[in-house]
């Protein structure tokens, strides 16, 4: 049984300028522990798909199942990481990580321990008491990842999380994310429009095309984890990257 099952989902937005078909009869199954990247140009419906799984949007038709249960709204079993970090600016890094735990009524001591555990996992143990404004972009996103991890979701949904970071920080964050993910496996659905990033992170790359949003191709990435520089620079990587590139840029 797949952990996430998207069945014949169509999502139509009715705006003042008319109807926009954001997703057109899309189906996708994601297995437990997979790392899926969704890649495609803007308007291909990748964010819509993520938000449907996250429960922030409802499909016009079709069904989204997580753990065999239809998604009816957002919930702590599906953590979301946003491009704009979305840390609460009035809370410290630790308080941000504890936010979801408080809602689950986790006792204070355990809350602090769990927060520190996940802050350490992303390398922010020394910044527990820092306010978001005192953190760099990369550190903010690490804190947001720790916050999503802390509530123990079975799925992590990441909406272009490194999109606002510079190229060097971005590569570092990709490596760190894979490291964190290998220490604590979650099923990840990760959106990007960067082909390199899509191939480097994923066990499966889902290529999407716009107007209307559809899945045009699914490409397996049979490269072993842990991945590092050797993989990034390997001919196998280059070959898969070329296939994804063609899929993104040359679909009819």
């Amino acid at each position, binding site marked *: 049984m797949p952990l996430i099952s998207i069945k014949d989902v169509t999502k139509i937005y009715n705006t003042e300028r008319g109807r926009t078909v954001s997703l057109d009869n899309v189906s996708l199954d994601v297995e437990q522990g997979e790392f899926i990247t969704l890649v495609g140009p803007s308007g291909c419906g990748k964010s819509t798909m993520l938000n449907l799984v*996250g*429960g*922030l949007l409802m499909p016009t038709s079709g069904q989204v199942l997580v753990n065999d249960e239809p998604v009816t*709204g*957002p*919930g*702590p079993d*599906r*953590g*979301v990481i*946003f491009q*704009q970090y*979305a*840390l*609460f*600016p*009035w*809370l410290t890094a630790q308080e941000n990580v504890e*936010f*979801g735990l408080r*809602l*689950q009524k986790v006792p204070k001591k355990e809350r602090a321990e769990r927060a520190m555990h996940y802050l350490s996992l992303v390398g922010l143990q020394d910044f527990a008491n820092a*306010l*978001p*404004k005192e953190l760099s972009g990369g550190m903010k996103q690490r804190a947001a990842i720790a*916050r999503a991890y802390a*509530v123990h979701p079975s799925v992590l949904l990441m909406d272009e999380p490194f999109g606002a970071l510079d190229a060097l920080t971005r590569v570092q964050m990709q490596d760190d994310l894979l490291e964190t993910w290998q220490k604590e496996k979650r099923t990840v659905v990760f959106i990007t429009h960067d082909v390199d990033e899509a191939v480097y992170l994923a066990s499966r790359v889902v290529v999407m095309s716009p107007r209307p949003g559809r899945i045009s191709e699914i490409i397996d990435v049979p490269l072993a984890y842990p991945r590092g520089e050797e993989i990034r620079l390997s001919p196998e990587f280059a070959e898969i990257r070329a296939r994804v590139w063609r899929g993104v840029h040359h679909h009819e």
Partner: protein
Amino acid sequence: MSERQAEPEALTMATPTVVAEDTEKGERSLKGLYVVTFFLGIGIWTLSAVLSRNALIPTPIDVVASFAELIADGTLWGHTVTSLSRVTTGFLLGVALAIPAGFLMGWYWLARGLLEPWIQFFRTIPPLALIPLVIVILGIGETAKIYVIFLAAFLSCVLATFQGVRNVDITLINAARVLGAKDFTIFTRVVIPASTPFIFVGMRVALGASWATLVASELIAAPTGLGRMMQQAAQFLQTDRIVVGIIMIGALGFIMDRLLLLAERRLTRWQETR
């Protein structure tokens, strides 16, 4: 061509004063300037009072003497306490009602639809314009004055709070939702803290409006208060006393504004832009 470019360049040459203000040295010399300009102002005042040869224009010395006299006979204290308590009561009542009303308007479509037209309409009326009606209905007692101040404070603060709620970043609300927060929690733990900077702006505007309204209402009709003191002094042409009143009102307003600013700095230290 090159002559045309000269102008913007001259403009950029002028900007380094702004940069200098940021440095510690610049800040210190700025404080020095504040002291200089204070004495300069007093000097110009004295000079023009003396040169005018008009007994109705008081010198700073006259004002200080009058100030001492008013303190000695205890009247200044009494008027100040009355005025302060009126302003504080009206302001606090106004703000206390404006904040929940603003939240309701920002959060519930129904509340917005029912309240916003009235607030937008009354906002355009200076509270002073209501004084004649209020005096006829409520008399010249405390209730009338506090009511007008309350109205002034409420109207200034309610829209700021409303704007604050409308401006809460939707991503923060979504972030809370995906962590499992329901409406009530989102409201208390996200919307309220996120809109505090706006509320403080509203409160400071409300404080200014409260003072303006207080003094005006006391000038029109009141048995006591700083406005009354000034009105009385005017009848006896005691301009030095009037100036004492003006300075008191300015000083009290300034102190209260600084207190609010201090509270704001403390509570919204997390803001990015500071």
